[in-house]
């Protein structure tokens, strides 16, 4: 049992290395910021464009920035399948939220209660998705991000703060935290190149 726990700890440590560069935080922060800007400018396509564009940008940055500093490890096929399944579920959930928004804004006769509490429901769903990420990836700071996202709706509903400002505020804070983590990461792990046998 003891060595099983230790192996799980090692696995967790290995898994966590992929979250210690803050790039996923920046991704989430800009995505949330994008929602705020989309509502502000009525550009409904913006979150989708940001999500897809940023997703590939993050992987490219990870290759250049992260792997040259902490190295690269590939998980077993089973673990990779599990991670992919989670990402697919997450992607579908985000897509469903997008479709829900489009449909609800599209139909003119939505129920009154839905119109009244829509920001709360929408931010709640987004916060729940972020909570799932926190739980799956075991990255506790993502719970804080979920609270920040939900707080935007609460401030809007009961304190009259504009809904989009909640997104912009939460997204901005998340991006700043991500940048802070990235700076710490870059300082802690300088770029390393393997030595060749005759380089000593």
């Amino acid at each position, binding site marked *: 049992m003891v060595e099983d726990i230790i192996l799980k700890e090692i696995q967790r440590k290995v898994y966590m290395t992929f979250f210690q560069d803050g790039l996923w935080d920046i991704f989430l922060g800009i995505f949330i910021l994008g929602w705020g800007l989309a509502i502000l400018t009525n550009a409904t396509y913006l979150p989708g464009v940001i999500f897809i564009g940023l997703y590939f940008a993050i992987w490219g940055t990870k290759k250049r920035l992260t792997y040259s500093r902490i190295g690269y*490890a590939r998980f077993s096929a089973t673990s990779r399948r599990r991670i992919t399944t989670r990402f697919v579920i997450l992607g579908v959930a985000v897509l469903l939220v997008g479709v829900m928004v489009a449909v609800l804004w599209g139909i003119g006769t939505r129920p009154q209660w839905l119109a009244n509490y829509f920001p709360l429901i929408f931010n709640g769903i987004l916060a729940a998705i972020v909570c799932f990420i926190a739980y799956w990836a075991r990255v506790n700071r993502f719970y804080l991000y979920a609270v920040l996202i939900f707080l935007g709706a609460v401030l809007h509903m009961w304190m009259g703060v504009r809904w989009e400002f909640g997104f912009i505020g939460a997204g901005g804070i998340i991006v700043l935290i991500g940048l802070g983590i990235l700076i710490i990461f870059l300082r802690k*792990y300088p770029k*390393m190149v393997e030595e060749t046998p005759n380089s000593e």
Partner: protein
Amino acid sequence: MAYLYVVEVADFLFLLRQTGMTWGNLSAHLSKLETAGYVTIEKEFLGKKPHTIARLTDQGRNAFEEYRGTMKRVLDNLPAK
């Protein structure tokens, strides 16, 4: 070996960061594990930079599991405080 056991493949830099070993020390360890047939080492160049990839062989995986079993028995048989 424990680090290689939980992943399919890892590069030299990754193992170096995770284990906290020195360059020479890790290199010597990997060489010994390779000689024993527990690990395969692939060397390649990414651009002009050398890149070493390590992978646990089936023999290495079995040896590690056997080691785990032995350690478990040893720990289970320790007298209670």
